[in-house]
């Protein structure tokens, strides 16, 4: 006895398999660009690089319009990881708001804490003690090394090389264990406070840091040799996804992706904060703007960060690590904007205070959000396999993109 399906059967979701292939976009187009995108011509196919995918860096959905293997157009759909951080921060007080910002770009959480902390200190007209500032710079640069190491592993994994990821994780694991010895957490550190940091550097951290520094540079260079001259890697990344200087500036890109296109804009040099004016470091810049340049720049930045950590260790003054702040934080009404250089670009916090103990508005400007727009400009004309390479080289973290 065969089972017959009736169209009136309420438990049946589709009445025929053909209904499954109807449009991915069930809603009428809301803007002219959307209408233009979803009008599919003969020979073109809409395919979903869905939110669940091994290679989109988090939950990113990209609707690709492809013709065979070639991409004609794409429409990224965001919001799968939207947690409403800005609204949550409006209903929390200033200390709690900082805890909400950690999981934004979870790979580089210290940077996510730093900008709001700096913005709130500006609202309070407060300056953190010198030692606290040095500690902030030191831990942030460590986090930058860890983040860039992970980037290298991810880029290789998206291209098919399984091994560099594990080597990158060896590096990252050491740093993260170090920071765990200091802050108590391996990933969402929750270390910075308004007015300083939460506790001076302890012995465990310093000994691990000393160990690591003695072999960091050699280890980094050994890891780089895995991929830098690999013929297949070069063929897949050189000349791919070129973003030229004007386009990059118009897109509002920041960070290593911008510097790979020839614009030497680094917030640490352009608008120095904390103790960066006292540290000597280079800002690596490349002209080509392709995936390989974006990859090499981050490797150069790792070396610069190690150099900076070295200088911090030598120059660190003694003193308190936390300024005297009132128990209840009520800044006077006003606005403050603080921008820092996170591993992905310029991360900024715009905070408005209305005199109460909760921020009136806290806007977080995320670099991955803006950098991801480059995808729409650069991908058409390339193959599906290049989507992964280019996306990995732009290094988005969906937690930050979706806030």
């Amino acid at each position: 006895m065969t089972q017959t399906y009736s169209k009136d059967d309420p438990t049946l979701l589709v009445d025929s398999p053909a209904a499954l292939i109807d449009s991915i976009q069930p809603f009428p187009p809301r803007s002219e660009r959307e209408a233009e995108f979803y009008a599919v011509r003969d020979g073109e196919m809409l395919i979903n690089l869905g939110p669940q995918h091994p290679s989109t860096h988090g939950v990113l959905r990209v609707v690709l319009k492809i013709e065979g293997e070639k991409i004609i157009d794409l429409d990224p759909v965001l919001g799968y990881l939207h947690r409403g951080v800005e609204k949550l921060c409006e209903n929390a007080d200033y200390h709690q708001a900082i805890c909400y910002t950690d999981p934004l770009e979870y790979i580089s959480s210290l940077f996510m804490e730093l900008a709001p902390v700096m913005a709130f200190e500006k609202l309070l007209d407060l300056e953190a003690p010198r030692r606290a500032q040095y500690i902030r710079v030191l831990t942030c640069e460590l986090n930058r090394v860890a983040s860039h190491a992970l980037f290298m592993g991810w880029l290789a994994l998206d291209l098919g090389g399984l091994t560099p990821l594990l080597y990158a994780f060896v590096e990252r694991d050491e740093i993260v264990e170090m920071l765990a010895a200091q802050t108590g957490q391996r990933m969402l550190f929750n270390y910075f406070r308004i007015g300083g940091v939460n506790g001076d550097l302890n012995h465990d951290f310093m000994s691990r840091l000393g160990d690591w520094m003695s072999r960091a540079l050699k280890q980094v260079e050994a890891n780089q040799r895995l991929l830098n001259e690999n013929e297949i890697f070069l063929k897949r990344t050189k000349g791919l996804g070129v973003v030229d200087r004007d386009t990059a500036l118009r897109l509002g890109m920041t960070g290593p992706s911008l510097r790979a296109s020839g614009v030497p804009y680094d917030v640490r040099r352009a608008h120095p904060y904390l103790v960066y004016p006292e540290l000597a470091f280079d800002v690596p810049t490349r002209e080509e703007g392709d995936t390989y340049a974006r990859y090499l720049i981050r490797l150069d930045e790792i070396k610069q960060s190690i150099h900076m950590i070295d200088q911090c260790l030598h120059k660190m003054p003694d003193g308190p690590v936390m300024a005297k702040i009132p128990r209840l934080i009520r800044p006077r009404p006003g606005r403050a904007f603080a921008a820092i250089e996170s591993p992905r670009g310029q991360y900024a916090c715009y905070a408005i205070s209305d005199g109460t103990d909760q921020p009136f508005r806290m806007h977080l400007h995320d670099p991955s959000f803006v950098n991801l727009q480059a995808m729409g400009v650069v991908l058409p004309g390339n193959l599906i396999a290049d989507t992964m390479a280019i996306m990995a080289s732009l290094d988005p973290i969906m937690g930050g993109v979706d806030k």
Partner: protein
Amino acid sequence: MDARLARRLDARFSDRLLRPVTGRHDETEVRIAPSEVPEVMRTLHDDPEFGFTVLADLCGVDTGEVMQVVYHLWTEPAVTRDWLRVIVDGLDRDDPRCPSVTFLWKGAEWQERETYDMFGIVFEGNRDLRRIYMPPDYTSFPLRKDFYLADDAARGAGEGVRHMEQMATPAAATRSNTVRRAKIS
């Protein structure tokens, strides 16, 4: 605030500014009306005297009385070391409209989409103004100050606003006593 920059802005845009140029720490702030946005932005971007080519941030603010769109711009250190904050003030809370700056910075497209999604501010000239975070069929704008979520325990048609400081009973939470009145301007 950078005094030199303030003088230059005053000189150039004197009739368009809603308020004198102010600032605090390393930020300089100007206020303009929505209709002035395209010209002011183009001047700030193209004019070699200013040269604010980097759009650092674009966001919306709901003060409770009006809505604002806030831009942060950066230029070469030779001109000024400050951030320039351009506040577009006076957007009506019930029908906020503002011209788009996507003609200058393509990267403003998604940031304007986010502002539209969170506040309902319609950017005229943005080719792709649709929701970016919320689902396409979402009907409210979350970051507005009068945004409220339906309360499961609510009785009757009026649903209560929830703040972190809870009212004594859910029924005591009404719109009039829970929408935050801004003490900023």
